[in-house]
């Protein structure tokens, strides 16, 4: 018991939690925007892969770290646009299209990586983002050192939580996105474009998702591996329901998840001898399912989620 307490009050534990949570924050925010507009984006897993690969490769080719971030976001936006075209004006099954995007984005990334680097034994490395040293904030007693150990991408993720919150709750655009996910006719009758809002939301959301992937290769690690996303995208889809489509709760959900993941890594070193290591590896996925089950009953799904809308048909 004492051990767990010690872990829970250690700064490195919370720093690790925030680090693990970062890609999920991007992913959950992205999924949240798409679903608020009424479209489920199961392309998320593949968009993570694309973001991870493109961001890394851009840096590797000399675009610089922020150049890499931009490339990753654009790549994510591109696959988001594809999903948007299939599901919004064409109104095709959001489930199948999303899975198709995941398969397509993943295979494009893998093929590109393999074609660019046919014969490497160990994956080439880049110089990743380094922890930021911020003048005043870093000197705060506990929080300072937790935040002090984070890279610019984590800061960007936290900033995006605020941005998404502001847009959704304080701007006309946010109101319109919420409305189009609840009743597209309401938006159409007021002369706004249902297609435009939905496509825009999916593209923006997908760009955010890709940043989650980019964090993996440009901050958490310094190289691209096959299978490195490993279900993180699907976890986000579960978390967004847990977060009831609210940016603040999305941050909370991602942090809880990160904390749990960080805890299991530390517990593994403490009691690893007693339990096979895989039990700890499974834990995050099981946690996601539990979160989903707990939240599902009372979940206030956007009413128009999964329902295609065609102009001129009521």
């Amino acid at each position, binding site marked *: 018991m004492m051990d767990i307490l010690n872990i829970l009050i250690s700064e490195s534990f919370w720093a690790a939690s925030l680090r693990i949570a970062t890609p999920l924050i991007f992913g959950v925010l992205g999924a949240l925007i798409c679903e608020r507009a009424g479209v489920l984006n199961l392309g998320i897993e593949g968009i993570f892969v694309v973001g991870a690969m493109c961001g890394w490769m851009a840096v590797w080719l000399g675009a610089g770290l922020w150049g890499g971030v931009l490339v990753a976001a654009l790549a994510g936006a591109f696959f988001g646009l594809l999903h948007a075209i299939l599901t919004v004006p064409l109104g095709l099954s959001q489930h199948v299209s999303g899975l198709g995007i995941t398969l397509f984005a993943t295979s494009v990334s893998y093929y590109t990586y393999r074609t660019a680097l046919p014969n490497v034994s160990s994956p080439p490395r880049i110089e990743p983002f380094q922890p930021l040293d911020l003048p005043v904030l870093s000197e705060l007693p506990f929080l300072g050192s937790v935040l002090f150990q984070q890279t610019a991408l984590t800061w960007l993720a936290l900033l995006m939580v605020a941005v998404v919150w502001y847009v959704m709750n304080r701007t006309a655009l946010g109101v319109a996105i919420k409305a189009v996910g609840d009743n597209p006719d309401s938006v159409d009758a007021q002369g706004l474009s249902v297609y435009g809002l939905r496509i825009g939301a999916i593209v923006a959301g997908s760009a955010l998702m890709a940043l989650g992937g980019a964090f993996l290769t440009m901050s958490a690690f310094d190289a691209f591996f096959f299978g490195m996303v490993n279900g993180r995208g699907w976890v986000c889809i579960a978390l967004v329901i847990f977060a009831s489509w609210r940016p603040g709760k999305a941050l909370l959900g991602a942090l809880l998840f990160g904390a749990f993941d960080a805890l299991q890594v530390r517990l593994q070193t403490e009691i690893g001898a007693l339990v*096979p290591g895989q039990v700890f590896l499974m834990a995050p*996925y099981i946690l996601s399912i539990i979160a989903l089950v707990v939240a*599902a009953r009372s979940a206030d799904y956007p009413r128009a989620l999964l329902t295609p809308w065609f102009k001129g048909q009521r």
Partner: protein
Amino acid sequence: MIRIEPRQTQSRAFTLGVPVLSAVIALAFAAIPLLAAGANPLQAYAEMFRGVFGSVFAFSEVLTRATPLIFTGLAAALAFRAKLWNIGAEGQLYLGAMAAVAIGSGVLDVSGILLLPLIVLLGAAAGAAGMVAPTYLKTRFGADEVVTTLLLNFIILIFVQMMLEGPLQDPMSLGWPQSAPVLDQGMLPPLMDRMRVHSGLVVALILAGLAQFMLARSVWGFRLRAVGENAAAARHAGINVNRSLFGVAILSGGLAGLAGVSEVAGLKGYLTSDLSPGFGYTGIVVAMLAGLSPAGVVIAALFIASVFVGADSMSRAMGVSSFLADLVVSVSLLCVLVGGFVARYRIVRASTTRAAS
């Protein structure tokens, strides 16, 4: 102004034409990544063709590869017919495979003739269990089965690794994470000499035929179709929707489990954690290409298997990454989706839109 409206009639040409055309477009699309890799597409296509039809062995490899895809394709097709989104065939496949090696490697002292049926039965049961759980969470708590089955895939795969380093590990494997082999009397007999194609294919074909027949002609199939097409109306008409969902969950999971049994007891002989290169996910593409028809699944599985086998052989000959096959498969899925749209809707000028009331 342009509007989209449903077609009043659907021609048979679309039902058949869409998947075929999608496959052709996806194959043609492959020229772009081939060119990007600096390969001559025509030569690559020729290599792929040779890899599939070049010899009896080559084609037997396609059949071998198609076998698990028929199982997982049927698993997806039946579930999707009922609008039960089973994306967990990959995990259910491993559950089936685990059951097969657990029983088949001599843990249980079962006489020879009984062992194989027992493996098949329990393998299917294990897969079914893997789908019943998410279906329960869906019907009881409203937890989206897409997410739960997807996450279960990861959980099960880690569980397999745990078992392969623990109770299921072959003592003779020198610490390598692999299971003990299935006993000879537990193996699905091969179909041809010196080829890898095995009688799992026959089981798959029989099940596809059976599923096709039952879907169209049985009361069970009627209920399943009604639940999938309009659950509210089915419920109103007195059909027990949850029972239908659990029924199809058992079948779908069982079929996916059989894919694992067939790979372990028909092909590999033992279980490793890389038994399936994503057969579960590819099964979804197979089902979609098949238009969710069980008979179509057989043809679609043969096509997808050809792509994989052909791309492998092309890859060996020309040094182009065999991820090309995954690209072709995913593009064919997207094409068939769009094709489904073209078949169901037509684009009209606004002036001919039908009356709203």
